């Protein structure tokens, strides 16, 4: 096989997963670079930013818009769903590949195209789109308002294509899980991470339809002058907000669930414990998914919707804290009676729980409509959702990468470097976003490129907090170089890993490391659930799913 067949046009799910992983991480690096640039502007307004230059107001808006879009659509989703889903699903159910390998490849190619279009959109006349990742019309609909005719249309086209890519991917995930499971693998023998990825795919497919329709309507408004969202032509700008958030809120759970799944696999393996109440986890996941369709308007409390609606959405939003809290409690309870080993992967998994708890609790402030009047669109919101998204898209992803690296490449990553990387990520992450809760509470509005015009906000006390946050961003980014070094060095030179280096139970550890095309020498048969650790009366403290009784 030539290089091209093997690595570029492959239909092997592992190669496609790896393509998604590397493309997603590359986009994440671009997104992080953007956050560095606009944070520098906020901490040192009007100064030249090293490796960028002066930041204009238009550039600032384009930077935050594309930072948000990239982090959600081109980093979190491809890495959490597409990369881990592609790599893990066939391996963990004992199959040789996805049901539709060619659709799988097409999905990645469309995704890559969308990423290229997005990047091109930064460099077209007028510059990149700057109307925030939520793209509310009329600003996003008319060039005379946003002044970036090319940037806006390309941004929208890129987003629409990206959705198509994930629709195609989702079809594969669902059919494969339903149809290709190893002999003997019942529904309740499926590792929780796969359930999470597949439920997330279903959520995505059920929520994205209205937004695709909305995106096409918006594209028409931009390009051929229709007025779907223009009141002077009988349209309604608030309609877009409903379409956007009907998708946008479930989207949070679309990325959250795979992250929770990864954390479950890592935690059970490194505490040698059965997942506490597997069935409860599964059913609360489904309940959360369903509930997430009934909370979208909490993003619109003060957007001019009928004020009575806020009451209904306050109830649903605050109540969604119940299943989420339940899931977190179950995870914490899993540690009870364990034998915890602090590998790098485990440190990241535990850090996920510790930080996501902050994201969850602060969400209640925003769900409680009366309090949201004050917090809406302040840095409190920014801090809140980064306390959910960074644990999801960064911390859990690192847990997954350190955990499955030996399977991906047949070698270990260096643990010492890994632990330094862990602390260099965990500590600065908190010192970036904790201060932002306080600037937000003091009234810092988001999407403001300099506070110099607002006397009450341009005080030294607040500015110091902004500087702490920005310096922490720089520190956090520096420590990521360590990760990249570790990743690429270990790929070729890391200590060799056997089939099942962590003594885990699930089927991917039955395949050779790295697994060849087709995955298994002999297809495994399944005799028990995925988390039979420390079963009394056995010499070993693990019991692989495929081991005969």
């Amino acid at each position: 096989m030539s290089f091209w067949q093997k690595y570029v046009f492959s239909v092997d799910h592992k190669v496609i997963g790896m393509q998604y992983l590397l493309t997603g991480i590359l986009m994440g690096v671009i997104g992080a670079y953007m956050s560095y640039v606009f944070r520098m502007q906020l901490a040192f307004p009007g100064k030249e930013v090293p490796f960028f230059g002066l930041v204009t107001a238009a550039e600032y808006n384009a930077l935050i818009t594309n930072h948000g879009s990239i982090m959600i659509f081109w980093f979190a989703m491809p890495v959490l769903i597409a990369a881990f889903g592609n790599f893990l699903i066939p391996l963990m159910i004992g199959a040789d590949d996805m049901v539709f390998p060619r659709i799988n490849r097409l999905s990645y190619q469309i995704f890559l195209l969308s990423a290229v279009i997005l990047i091109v959109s930064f460099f077209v006349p007028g510059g990149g789109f700057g109307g925030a990742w939520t793209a509310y019309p009329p600003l996003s609909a008319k060039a005379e308002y946003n002044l970036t005719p090319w940037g806006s249309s390309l941004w929208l086209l890129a987003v629409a294509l990206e959705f198509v890519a994930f629709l195609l991917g989702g079809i594969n995930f669902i059919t494969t899980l339903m149809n290709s499971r190893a002999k003997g693998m019942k529904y309740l023998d499926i590792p929780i991470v796969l359930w999470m990825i597949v439920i997330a795919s279903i959520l995505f497919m059920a929520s994205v339809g209205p937004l695709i329709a909305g995106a096409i309507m918006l594209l028409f408004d931009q390009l051929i002058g229709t007025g779907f969202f223009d009141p002077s032509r009988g349209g309604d700008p608030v309609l877009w907000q409903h379409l956007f958030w009907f998708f946008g809120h479930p989207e949070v759970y679309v990325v959250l669930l795979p992250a929770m799944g990864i954390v479950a696999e890592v935690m059970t393996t490194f505490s040698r414990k059965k997942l506490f109440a597997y069935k409860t986890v599964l059913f609360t996941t489904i309940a959360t998914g369903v509930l997430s369709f009934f909370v979208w308007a909490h993003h619109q409390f003060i957007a001019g919707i009928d004020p009575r609606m806020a009451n209904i959405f306050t109830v649903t939003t605050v109540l969604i804290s119940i299943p989420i809290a339940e899931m977190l409690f179950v995870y914490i309870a899993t540690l009870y009676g364990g034998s915890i080993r602090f590998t790098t992967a485990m440190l990241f998994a535990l850090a996920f729980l510790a930080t996501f708890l902050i994201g969850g609790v602060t969400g209640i402030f925003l769900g409680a409509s009366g309090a949201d009047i004050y917090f809406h669109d302040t840095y409190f919101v920014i801090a809140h959702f980064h306390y959910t998204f960074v644990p999801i898209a960064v911390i859990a992803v690192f847990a997954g990468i350190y955990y499955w690296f030996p399977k991906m490449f047949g070698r270990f990553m260096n643990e010492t470097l890994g632990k330094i990387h862990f602390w260099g990520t965990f500590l600065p992450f908190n010192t970036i976003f904790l201060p932002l809760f306080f600037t937000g509470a003091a009234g810092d509005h988001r999407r403001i490129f300099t506070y110099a015009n607002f006397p009450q906000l341009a005080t030294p006390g607040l500015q110091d907090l902004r500087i702490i946050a920005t310096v922490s961003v720089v520190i956090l980014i520096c420590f990521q170089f360590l990760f990249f070094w570790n990743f690429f060095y270990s790929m070729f030179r890391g200590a060799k890993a056997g089939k099942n280096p962590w003594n885990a139970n699930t089927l991917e550890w039955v395949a050779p490391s790295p697994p060849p095309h087709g995955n298994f020498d002999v297809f495994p048969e399944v005799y028990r659930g995925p988390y039979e650790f420390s079963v009394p009366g056995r010499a070993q403290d693990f019991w692989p799913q495929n081991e005969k009784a």
Partner: protein
Amino acid sequence: MLDFMSLLRESASTFARDIDHLIAWVAILGGFWWLIAEGVLVWLIVKFRHKEGVRAQYITGEKKEEMKWIHWPHNLILLCDVAIIIMAINVWYNVKQKLPPADDTIRVIGQQWSWRFVHSGKDGILGTPDDVETVEDLHVQVGKTYHFKLETTDVLHNFSVPVFRLKQDSIPGRVITGWFKPTMTGTFDIQCAEMCGIGHGIMMGRIHVQTPEEYDQWLSTQQKVAQSH
């Protein structure tokens, strides 16, 4: 609790206190559960770290007496949630749903990228020839209840006065009515809190909350300007 409130901006409207108290209650109830959860997490991490020769226990979490450790906190959280929902809706109702009778009405017009304000002038009635229009500076009297009529000429904006705990999107084609009653004199920031294009970050304004005397004096200078034209 009041000390905790100093994290927020000073409160200068009648409903600002209500919102602050709601925030404090959410902080207390949420903070309580957060501390318990983090505490248990850290305790378990320390207590059950790997020790040579000690094996993990086999616990499935499927027995009733195991699940009660999850169910009890869960039920108590539900209680806290209900309390928060009731308080939140109560505050919301007073701020956004109920419209107390007005002493005076102003028009607030957002446009890329400045605020226009129309004051009712001497006769206290909007839409008459003595209305006073200003850009960026809004003048109101302390202790009076105001209705505002919020409009926009182009894109979405958001009329936000942090010291009042007031925030409301403006929408093209609609006039959105809301209210506030200032309780403290001074000059405060007005921000635009909805992304409205390149100038969003500089779309500022000031609200001057004045005593009736100061306000009358300001009004008379306005008329002089108008007459000298």
